[in-house]
């Protein structure tokens, strides 16, 4: 058997690491996936190759995060390796070593935001973003679309790419009013430099295969056709599955595989998904086959009955309505941005961020400067309920000379603010400062 697309599998189950012995993010998580992949003979398919992950360095993390107090204090080996898995996947694809790559790594990353004090939703660093910003050092002009198919809103990835027009972020997830982390409303469209490039598709509980594929066909694919990314990354969380213990959706292995075939991502990254016996072995196999361009029609959960998991008429109507609205927002994004930001020179975004795993409450104020020549410099003021405080200044990759100067000035100025840590991310020169 030969793959139609060569596929690099960065399969790294980290069999010697857990958040804690009974935590969902434990050694056992990918054990049954490994059993299934081995028993199916995936390693013998010509064109599917197993790669070991790279290991991210603190500098790779600094490119994305303001890590408090510093990167090494909060990031463990397992996180460096999970992010390294994504780096390896992107390297393999960009160097044409393989057509596509799937980083089946743990722990996940899509809840990790720009400021990181510790663990949120099992994530400390955003592994897709660390991988993507790493590969952008070699390929600076990449236009990238990240499609997050995890059942939870990818709030970390949204925060990181909020103001970056070269990174389109689309998340579909169970409606935030019914599930952690609570965000992900359609109205969250992006910062002034990238308004409309952040698309949320909140779906009602019990959405089934039909609903997910409707969103794909009627929102995601048309938007991608329009945006024309150089690279598509799928944040492939697997907790929309009907057996997932933490969520309420009705998606199947067949549905995941078909979604991947249609989406045709260059790189997929495992995110959440904790039905480790009932879903992951089948969903992962389905995604592997779909990415490799192989027949997945016989991949099926042993207990799957289509009729049982079919979505209701009511759900179908809701999904159709949401899809129409999101697509309209995309099409009208320029007009909406003008209305939203007319006459403004700065936009301030106050927010609160709860770290469920670490039990930390953070209060933030993000300030985006509006610049006619680039996405503009931005600053985060953050304090948390443990007494930590920081100011983080970000000069975007695409920054104009004046915004570059402004970034350094703001970093100097932050010294007077009396915060415990201040950071400068000068992405335009790949230079990072902390004090």
């Amino acid at each position, binding site marked *: *058997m030969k793959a139609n697309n060569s596929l690099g599998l960065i*399969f*790294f*189950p*980290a*069999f*010697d*690491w*857990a958040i804690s*012995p*009974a935590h969902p993010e*434990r*050694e*056992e998580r990918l*054990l*049954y996936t*490994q*059993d*299934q992949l*081995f*028993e*199916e*003979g*995936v*390693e*013998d398919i010509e064109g599917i190759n*197993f*790669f*070991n*992950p790279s*290991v991210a360095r603190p500098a790779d993390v600094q490119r994305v995060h303001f890590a408090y107090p510093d990167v090494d204090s909060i990031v463990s*080996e*397992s996180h460096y*390796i999970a992010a390294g898995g994504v780096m390896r996947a992107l390297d393999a694809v960009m160097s044409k070593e393989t057509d596509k790559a799937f980083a089946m790594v743990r722990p996940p990353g899509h809840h990790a935001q720009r400021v990181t004090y510790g663990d949120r939703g099992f994530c400390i660093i955003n592994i897709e973003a660390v991988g993507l910003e790493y590969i952008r050092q070699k390929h600076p002009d990449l236009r990238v679309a990240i499609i997050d198919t995890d059942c939870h809103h990818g709030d970390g990835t949204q925060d990181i790419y909020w103001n970056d027009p070269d990174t389109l972020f689309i998340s579909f997830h169970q409606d935030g009013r019914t599930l952690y982390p609570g965000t992900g409303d359609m109205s969250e469209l992006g910062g002034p430099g990238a308004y409309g490039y952040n698309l949320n598709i909140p779906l009602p509980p019990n959405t089934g295969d039909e609903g997910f594929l409707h969103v794909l066909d009627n929102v995601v694919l048309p938007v991608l056709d329009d945006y024309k990314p150089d690279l598509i990354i799928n944040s492939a969380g697997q907790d929309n599955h009907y057996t997932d213990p933490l969520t309420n959706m009705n998606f199947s292995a067949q549905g995941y595989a078909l979604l991947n075939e249609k989406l045709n991502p260059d790189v997929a990254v495992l995110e959440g998904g904790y039905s480790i*016996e009932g879903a992951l*072995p*089948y969903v992962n*196999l389905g995604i592997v*086959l779909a990415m490799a361009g*192989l*027949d997945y*029609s*016989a*991949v*099926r*959960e*042993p*207990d799957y009955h289509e009729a049982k998991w079919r979505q209701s008429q009511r759900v179908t109507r809701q999904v159709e309505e949401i899809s129409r609205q999101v697509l309209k927002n995309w099409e009208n994004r320029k007009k909406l941005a003008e209305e939203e930001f007319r006459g403004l020179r700065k936009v301030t975004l106050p927010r609160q961020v709860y770290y469920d795993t670490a039990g930390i409450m953070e209060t933030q104020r993000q300030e985006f400067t509006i610049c006619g020549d680039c996405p503009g410099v931005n600053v985060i003021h953050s304090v948390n309920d443990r007494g930590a405080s920081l100011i983080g200044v970000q000069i975007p990759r695409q920054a104009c000379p004046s915004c570059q100067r402004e970034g350094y000035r703001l970093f100097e100025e932050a010294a007077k603010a009396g915060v415990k840590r201040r950071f400068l991310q000068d992405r335009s020169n790949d230079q990072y400062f902390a004090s």
Partner: protein
Amino acid sequence: MILAIDMGGTHIDSVLVRQGELVKFVKHEVQRNDLFGSIWHCLQDLLQDQDKNEISRIHLSTTVCTNAIVEGKVSKVGVILQSGPGINWDFGNLGDNLHFLSGSTDHRGVVAEDFDPDDLEAIKKSFQQNAVESLAIISKFSPRNPETEKEIMSFFADAYSEITLGHSLSGKLNYPRRMQTAYLNAAVANTFRTFARNMLTALKQENITAPIYILKADGGTVDLGSALKRPVETILSGPAASYTGISALFPAENEDAVLLDIGGTTTDIFILADGIPLFEPVGIEIDHRKTLVRAVYSVSIGLGGDSYIRADEGEIRIGPERRGPAVAYGGEVLTPTDALVYLGLMSGKYPQKAEMAIASFASELNMDTEACAAQIVTQFSESILRKIDDILERVNKNPVYTIKELLHGQQITPRSIKVIGGPAQALAGALYEASGLEVTFPKNYEIANAVGAALAKPTTEISLYANTERRILSIPELDIYESIDRSFNQAEAENIALRAVERAGAAMGLSADQLDSEITESSSFNMVRGFMGRERNIRVRAQIRPGLLYDFQPTRERGKDESE
């Protein structure tokens, strides 16, 4: 005294070895159409002046199964597959008598859906109409739960004596390989049984009653009784005998090294990590079929002492083809051997002819004769070393699954090269130049394979799987399926695995001090199900460590008579 026979493609070597000491060595040509006769003539030659009563065991490296497979002279196999959901593999090379059963077992070993027993009647009829000779029955995830395979077998047991069940061959998870391995096992079962019967009859006529062991591709042996159940394990034992032979001829060292067997047509490369050979990650490939048969990892490249040399657009090209022997030995075309003979590194029958051949080739390339010969030798050595580098790069990238292995795993860095074969001594200098590594070669390299066959130890490997939630323990290779209580733990699992593999070793005739059992992999995973207690999922692999029955004593004189 051990009697060993190593059957290669062209030659059959036999030896008598007493306590690691060579007594006698005989070499014959193989008659491919009469393998049994070839063995027999060689044996008679070997034993004519020896005391047969002294023979305590017979070791046989045979190509009967390999040849039967490669030449397609196999039994007509009826194959029954229960694939269940998953990948649609191509089953095209499993013959025409292939049937699929409904139902499936999942990765936990839970039967998700039963097969329809009514289908079996029709399958049986079809097998009988098509004169099927042996059966292979394979179910996905059968090592986790063999019941389906066993149930199917019981239905056919009255009609067929040769039935191979997938789970009996290996505890490793790989359904397509299990399918191929079971198919091949059933395909050669009759061939091997006939061969064994002839062998036993002939030995009996000679009043030799010593137990027979068959060489396997993993460098170990298996007793004849087990080999009759799993004849597929006897395939491709040639390179393994050569590996065991090389390791017998060189003093044991626990270091990373490269072993080379440079023959006429090819060079076989083996890699040692801390003195232990690398194995094929899953199993060996034969006739474009990937199997679960454990094998010493070896790479064969088309470069040997007799490789055909010619010029191609002003460049020297060596191999992979062989067009007869070297000019120095009466051949027609230039070979690396001729370059070595011309340079005085090796002796030849016709050194002048070799010189003429080199000189004419050199002038064709506008080169000085000596420079040309030297260039051939350098190129030959460098090609081998390039291949070694490729292999090392690949094996050092083998996937790992733990943080410890990824961050602290050892890379293989050879410290020496050990070479056997005709040009070994002559090439040592060039190999050293090209690699910077210590290069050693033994005397009497020609006895290596047969000595390797004589000294190889019975080996076996088992996989234990335990799940306290389902309260089950299994060791598929030994057909052990038992229940356990919920307190069962990893230490108990390791203990059971070691005892089981030792029992298996003892059953193959190993004495207590030769057992040398070890755990090769062991892990225990917490299983958390709801809010009720912790369960464990335990996986352990154990083996009889491959190795030599005795250390070989190459310095002692040949044929010297000492009692055991």
